């Protein structure tokens, strides 16, 4: 199940997974909140498309990185909340480490003086 980030066009896709996992690390959230948090945290540098967000969520659910449950939102409305599973937590750690390695390598090249 473990998945390393492929180095090409899949990069963003994989990065989205990592971002979602990171967002959920601090607690359960619904889809809209996940998008909000990512946008705010990146200073709206990254806008999460709904067309990508939800399929990613469903896929990760299948991979049992996250699990869903129905709950009541802050505004008193029924909503679907996602939370990390232990497997998802391990996945987050792995992807974070992978990202660190990757970006460090890219930085060494691009930021070299």
């Amino acid at each position, binding site marked *: 199940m473990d998945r390393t980030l492929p180095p090409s066009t899949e990069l963003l896709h994989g990065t989205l997974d990592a971002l979602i996992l990171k967002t959920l690390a601090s607690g359960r959230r*619904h*889809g*809209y909140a996940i998008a*909000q948090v990512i946008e705010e945290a990146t200073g709206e540098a990254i806008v999460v*498309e*709904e*067309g990508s967000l*939800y*399929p990613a969520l*469903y*896929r990760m*659910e*299948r991979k049992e990185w996250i699990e869903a449950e*129905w709950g009541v*939102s802050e*505004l008193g*409305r*029924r*909503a*679907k909340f996602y939370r990390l599973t232990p497997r998802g937590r391990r996945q987050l750690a792995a992807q974070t480490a992978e990202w660190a390695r990757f970006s460090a390598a890219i930085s060494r090249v691009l930021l070299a003086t």
Partner: protein
Amino acid sequence: MRFFNRVFWRPDVDDEVDEELAFHVEMRTRELVARGLTVDAARREAERRLGDRARIRTTLRRLGTGRNRHMQRAQYLNELRQDIGFTIRQLLKNPGFAAIAVLTLALGIGGTTAIFSAVYAVVLRPIPLFEPERLFVVGETFQGLPSSMSVGNYVDANAGVTAFEGLAAEQFANFNLSDAGSAERVIGGRVTANYFDVLGARPLAGRVFTPDEDQPGRDLVVVLSHRLWVRRFGGRPIVGTSIRINGRNSVVSGVMTAAFDLTSDGEELWVPIAFTAERKAMHDEHYLSVYGRLARGASIQQALQQLEAVAVRLRHDFPRDAGELRYSMQSFREQFVGSYRSRLFILLGAVGLVLLIACGNVANLLLARGAARGREIAVRTALGAGRGRIVRQLLTESTVLALTAAAAGLVLAQWFITGVVAASPPGVPRLEQARVDPVALGFALAIAIACSILCGLAPALRLARSAIQTGLREGGRGSTRGGFRDRLRASLIAAEVALSLLLLVGAGLLIRSALALQQVNPGFDPHGVLSARIALPQTSYGDPARARDTFQRLADDVAHAPGVAHSAVTSYAAMGPGGGSNGLLTEDAGAFDLRKLIQSQLRIITPDFFAAMRIPIVKGRAFTADDRRGGLNVMIVSQTLAARAFPGLNPIGKRIGCCEQGADGTPSYKVVVGVAGDVRSRGPATPPNPEFYLPLTQAPDAAWDWIGRTMYIVARTDGHPQAPPRCAPRSPGSIRTSRCSTYDRWISASRRRWRRRGSTRSCCRSSAWWDCCSPPAASTASSRTSSASGLRRLASASRSAHRPAPSYGSCCARRCGRSRSVLVSAWRLRSARAACSAVSCSTSVRPTP
């Protein structure tokens, strides 16, 4: 899908997707409104940002469905693991229950698998020949009975039909192998050059015969069976070398594949049949088995029409020899498998019933145990387990039971198969190839699953239902009584009783017929009689006088052995191997007429035979030492023969012509001096045949070829013989004694065979009626056959009134009878062989000088 959603308490994927997207849009709208947009503008903007809603929805539904399926599978496997673990713990806690249930099912599954292996080996497995469905056995019928074919009839049929790619002929024969190692007698076939092509078999090494080799004088070539090649020659390269067969060197031209050993004791070698022009013209000697491969596109009707056209011509051209000729065709497969098909399926049905009973028993056990588990089930129900879940768990239990039983059953099946093969009559084709193979394994698995459902489903449904109905109230008391359960158990028991009754009745009928057979008076007393077979080699005992003297001396020797009360030698041991028949014509009957011939079993004996076998002489006298060669030619007839030949008359003193030709071309007449009691020579189930006896001293010279210089010692002992006595006398010599055994044992072996076999009836018709002899035909025809095998060959020497006399060698074999024709008896010959060569002790008798 809805069913699963209900089971797993998940909302429908469609609803989930719609609701989630709606929530998202609403939250986005709220955010935009908070930023100052109007509600309408905010909603529009939110929708716009979402993009193609329909597409997202489709994608999500697909993903969601896949996700759900995946999770269900995972959950199911997880539960299955739990159930199996739970079941194993449960069974280990109740080892008694587990052992009984597993053992019961294992017996049923083991038995069914064993019989299935037999059915598969004999009936279902494809015959390893090229397109066997186009392969036919072509024979003749005589008076409506199947018969082998004469050379003339074969040659003309082969030339006259186009519906066959070819007709191949085979004559079964014994061969002496005498190269390097010890001498050995094997069964083989003399075959036409196209034999292997017609059967559709290719050699493993070398080649098969060319038409050129199928000619007299060029026929010293041989094709070995794989079995013989491995057994005798160690599988070493042998093609091109020469081996000694019947005292002549023959070049090995090929070795067949192992698959061509269709049965464990069919032919072991083949040589060209090499018809002479003279043999090709013979129409009245019937000993060929003929196989035909139907041409592509030809129909059976076409083939039969063409054969009939040939028959019409032959009937016209040879009214005396082929006057009643009819050709017949039977599919090779049918001939090969024969009636064993239905018998084996009946057997499979019987063990199937046993398996059903076993299932019923286990179902009852499960029901009984279910009563004790009411509380456990009730607790599970209370904790939220649905009915389906509980049924599944209980079915898992019965499946675990059944699979364990199947594993044990396969071990049992190994033993059962050995038993089935050992207990079966000889001659069941391919039965010895029955084994627990992947097919049997699959079969065992399938019936195990069927069993688990059969014995587990009813109790599981019942238990789940009662638990849910009664809940903890009654469950707490550990009882889940109910009318339904009582009815279920009652009907289970009723079904079991019915099945058992069915089996009992079947078994009872079998036992009854077996007992009835045992009570039939065979006409002689086999108890306390020892017997052995003595075969003299033709090379050194070709002289009839020498053979006669040797057997005479042998009889005298045995008579003087300690503990022997009466002893004799005979050419045909009743209910044992040997035997042959001749056409008899009474002097009173007048001129020769085929219809007046009485086909009778011949027994050449020494005088003490009747005393040794306790066959009563009902009229006249037994032979004495005074019945010498050159004296009055005498004969003793059986009651049946007397009644047939001389109805209402006193047979003593009458003259019967038989067996040899007198000096002037008239038959040699013999005076009837006694009438012996009837003997059921063919077994207890077969009525006595006409039989007649000739004294050894007056045995026709030709008879030595008929019986292959083989006779049987019968010795009545004072006490009860246990072990073979000294049928192996003082000093070693060159005569081989085999089949030393008590007569009882001999018979019980035969009786087992008879029990499963229809009786055979003999008939023979030949212009050479006084030479009409039988099976152990001479040098060219196949030797010994046993009547016990159901395989009878009636043979007639080729000397005939209207033809100059060739050698006795060309005895013909016509086998008739209700049993299947001799045609494919290659595959049946096994029984003959068993009778001939089952050497129980091989010792030597001192040869007479």
